[in-house]
């Protein structure tokens, strides 16, 4: 193992390190700066600086801290997603928090800390690093979900999320301890080697695999571990819902790819079967439950559950196409979903909840641009070309067909067809109903920027996805 800590390791974690320092700086600046919106801008600058450090690590393949952490293109790809998601989420937060009268400096610091945790998750190849970074992300998120101190819903959501999150972390730890018991190591590669030496049906390995999977499924809100999602998403500040639905999910998937494709890869025949069942349930339950929702936040929460079900297909396929599909899908989902949430945030006005589908009625007449952008985001979520969502779904379905998971592919495409039904409900409200006095939007320049960025990327990937696919291809070398 050699020397545990080398000075060069600091360079390897520069993007994360910068975020920690910057977040602490924001906490201190909070004491001085009265206009909290400025802190939001400071946080965005911090994310950009972190992005620059990340860019310098582009193409670097290295291990740090004696193998606790790796720097590779896969990690960099996901770190980029987290930075983008955090930037866009902060941009849609600033006005929103003003409206909620809860604009405080620690909000921005917490987002930076959560992002830092996610970035470590993407690079973790060791159970301990993985767990600590996961909890760093999770604890920051628990607080953010409950950030609307005076709102009962927000507090309830936070508590629910925290209790269930802690419970699932416990299960996860249980699986991890079993794996450690089997292998005597916390490194993913050592675990894989130890598992491959044991018989496939070894009960202890199975137990470890099952508990570990259950913990992971909780984090991505897969059915049957999804119950917390609609409540947490509905109660949380909308900007945090947007952030969670893309970044927390992407981080959990990055972690899952490493755990399932490396650490417990020898158990693949078993976990593929479990995951296929979970994927089918997640897609179906998510979509069917979304049909009946009339609250946009809950509707999008269920829709995000079903999207997790689609992404699992990539892991089930498990080949290069499948993992590229996971990466590209999450990238696309980040932009598209944040765009959709940005429109929901724009609906929020002081003392108005602004979450019912009715409040979107006739949006097209009052604000055609917002309505058309929302239409494009919804079509992208549903996977209709020529939007980015189609490319993502296409890759997922392709990976399923390529690896012979035909039944799964059929169920998935039928689910994609069902999902158009509830996305179109929003479209119907926006374009085919008369506007009422509730249909008003509040904009800020930052929000408009988010909408523009999300729109441009969604359409660009939809029409010319080549650069993004090559990026994902670099992140997922053959034989990952």
């Amino acid at each position: 193992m050699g020397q545990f800590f080398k000075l060069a390791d600091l360079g390897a974690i520069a993007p994360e390190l910068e975020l920690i320092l910057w977040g602490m700086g924001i906490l201190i600046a909070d004491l001085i700066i009265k206009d909290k919106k400025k802190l939001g801008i400071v946080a965005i600058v911090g994310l950009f600086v972190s992005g620059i450090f990340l860019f310098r690590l582009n193409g670097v393949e290295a291990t740090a801290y004696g193998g606790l952490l790796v720097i590779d293109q896969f990690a960099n790809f996901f770190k980029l997603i987290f930075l983008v998601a955090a930037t866009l989420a902060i941009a849609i937060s600033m006005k929103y928090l003003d409206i909620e009268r809860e604009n405080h400096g620690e909000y921005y610091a917490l987002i930076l800390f959560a992002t830092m945790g996610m970035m470590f998750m993407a690079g973790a190849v060791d159970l301990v690093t993985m767990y600590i970074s996961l909890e760093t992300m999770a604890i920051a998120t628990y607080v953010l979900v409950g950030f609307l101190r005076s709102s009962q819903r927000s507090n309830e959501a936070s508590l629910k999320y925290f209790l269930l999150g802690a419970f699932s972390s416990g299960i996860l730890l249980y699986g991890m301890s079993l794996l450690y018991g089997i292998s005597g190591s916390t490194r993913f590669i050592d675990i894989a080697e130890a598992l491959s030496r044991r018989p496939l049906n070894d009960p202890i390995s199975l137990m470890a695999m099952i508990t570990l999977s259950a913990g992971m499924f909780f984090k991505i809100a897969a059915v049957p571990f999804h119950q917390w999602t609609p409540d947490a998403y509905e109660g949380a500040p909308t900007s945090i819902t947007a952030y969670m639905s893309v970044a927390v999910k992407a981080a959990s998937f990055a972690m899952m790819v490493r755990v399932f494709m490396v650490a417990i890869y020898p158990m693949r025949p078993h976990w593929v079967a479990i995951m296929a069942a979970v994927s089918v349930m997640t897609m179906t339950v998510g979509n069917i439950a979304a049909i009946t929702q009339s609250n946009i936040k809950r509707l999008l929460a269920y829709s995000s559950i079903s999207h997790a079900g689609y992404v699992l297909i990539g892991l089930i396929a498990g080949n290069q196409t499948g993992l590229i599909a996971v990466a590209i899908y999450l990238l696309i989902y980040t932009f598209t979903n944040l765009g959709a949430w940005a429109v929901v945030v724009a609906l929020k006005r002081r003392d108005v909840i602004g979450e019912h589908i009715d409040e979107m009625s006739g949006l097209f007449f009052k604000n055609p641009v917002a309505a058309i952008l929302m239409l494009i985001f919804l079509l992208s979520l549903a996977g209709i070309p020529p939007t980015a969502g189609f490319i993502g779904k296409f890759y997922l379905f392709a990976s399923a067909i390529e690896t012979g998971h035909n039944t799964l592919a059929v169920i998935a495409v039928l689910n994609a067809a069902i999902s158009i039904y509830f996305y179109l409900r929003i479209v119907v409200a926006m374009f085919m109903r008369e506007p009422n006095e509730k249909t008003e939007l509040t904009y800020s320049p930052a929000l408009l920027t988010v909408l523009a960025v999300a729109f441009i990327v969604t359409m660009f990937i939809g029409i010319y996805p080549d650069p993004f696919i090559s990026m994902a291809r670099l992140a997922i070398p053959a034989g990952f």
Partner: protein
Amino acid sequence: MDFFHAHILTIVTFFPLAGMIVLLFFGSENKNLIRLWANAVGIAGFAISIPLWLRFDFDKADQFQFVEHYKWIQALGADYHVGIDGISLLLILLTTLLGPLAILSSWSAIEIRTKEYYAFLLMLQTGMLGVFISLDFFMFYVFWEVMLVPMYFLIGVWGGARKLYAAIKFFLYTLVGSVLLLLGILALYFIYPSIAAVHPEVSAQFGTVPTFNILAFHAISPYLLQNFQEWIFLAFFIGFAIKVPMFPFHTWLPDAHVEAPTAGSVILAGVLLKMGTYGFLRFSLPIVPEGVKHYVPMVAALSIIAIVYGALVAMMQPDMKKLVAYSSVSHMGFVMLGMFALNPNGLNGSIIQQINHGISTGALFLIVGMIYERRHTREIAQFGGLSSVMPQFATVFLIMTMSSIGLPLLNGFIGEFTIMQGAFQRNIWWAVFGGSGIVLGAAYMLWLYQRTMFGKLENPANEKLQDMNLREWATMIPLIIVAFWIGLYPAPFFRALDKPVIKLVQKLDPSYLQGAPRLEAKSGERR
């Protein structure tokens, strides 16, 4: 000019979209300007598609012409690849003809949200043309799905009382079909390299990496296993059959037609349904011929049910538009029956009948639209004796009724007769049932005509109806001309079709052509 000729398909396809983008900059209160612009774009769109007919090399009608091929998504092997043969040529001209007529017919019918309406119509036009020109399966699929969105809005915003229901039903049905189609496409995509690897004549032409090139799929079809072909056929079948629509997937059609605005119905019946049959012709038949042959009995049975059932249901409709909608189900059953006879006559007739159906059903929807605009009802019982107040209208209606039921001298006869020939050669019972459909078709159409046009004018609301105006004549005249043209002198159309059809039959049943030189002579005679 050289640039125009080199990129003619691209220009014809994207011209309406370009027109739509310009339209977006118009002020929405300037309704007449918007209408003028949309009509100008529609007519110009037709005008620039005429060179396709003039420059098309009919002696090589089975080859793809006006080909353009560029790299698009290299990571997937999806290209921008377009080209047309005789079959797509006719369907493209049908589309560019019906498009402006649909636009013109909306002049006074659409008063609300005019700008968006024309924007969606023009967008739809590009989507449909894109489907017919694509030689890349990925690109085909993109156009195939893109087109759903404008049609959804046309029904959902400007439709009748149950428009939301009809619009979502249309969207969901077609989407379910198309996603299964996508899986079929993917299966072919992934099997291609394994076949190309062992068959040098394929890899020499199309390479060894996965591709969406439709010509490559045509080339590997002999090497696809029977079982695989059957599965692919089923995946394609659901996608295309919903679009056609074949019994029992037809239930979206009457709803969509009844609720859609007139122009929407014209486009839906005239062009959209043809996308399903085109899918069979371009993909199912040449790519999975063994799968096709395996399922001939099923498709024939469903087609015959559609013919008879569609006709019987049409007969009982109290609503004119619904009657025409169900007649579409019956006619499209005919088209499918002819196609699955899998012989030259059946296929020729099937394609000609697709054009005919576009012409005559499109015209009938326009006619129903004219009545609806005057009386705001389509209930047959509200009318009677209209021929006395609207003589010109009655004449046009009569011509199109005759065209629809297949009276000689008009287009319907040519199509039905050729299909019947093909069906007869395949199986006498097909012809028997098909023939009963013709009889029933005559019955419901003539009965409709009699109930609305003849008799005494009893309803006072009908006494002061205006006859057709100049604009309405302008929408009908081109259709009447084409109806007579195909009826009297179909040779140019068959000339575009003969070669592609022979190519298809060679794939499906080579022995058929060797064993029956008689047929060749016969099709020569017809010319």
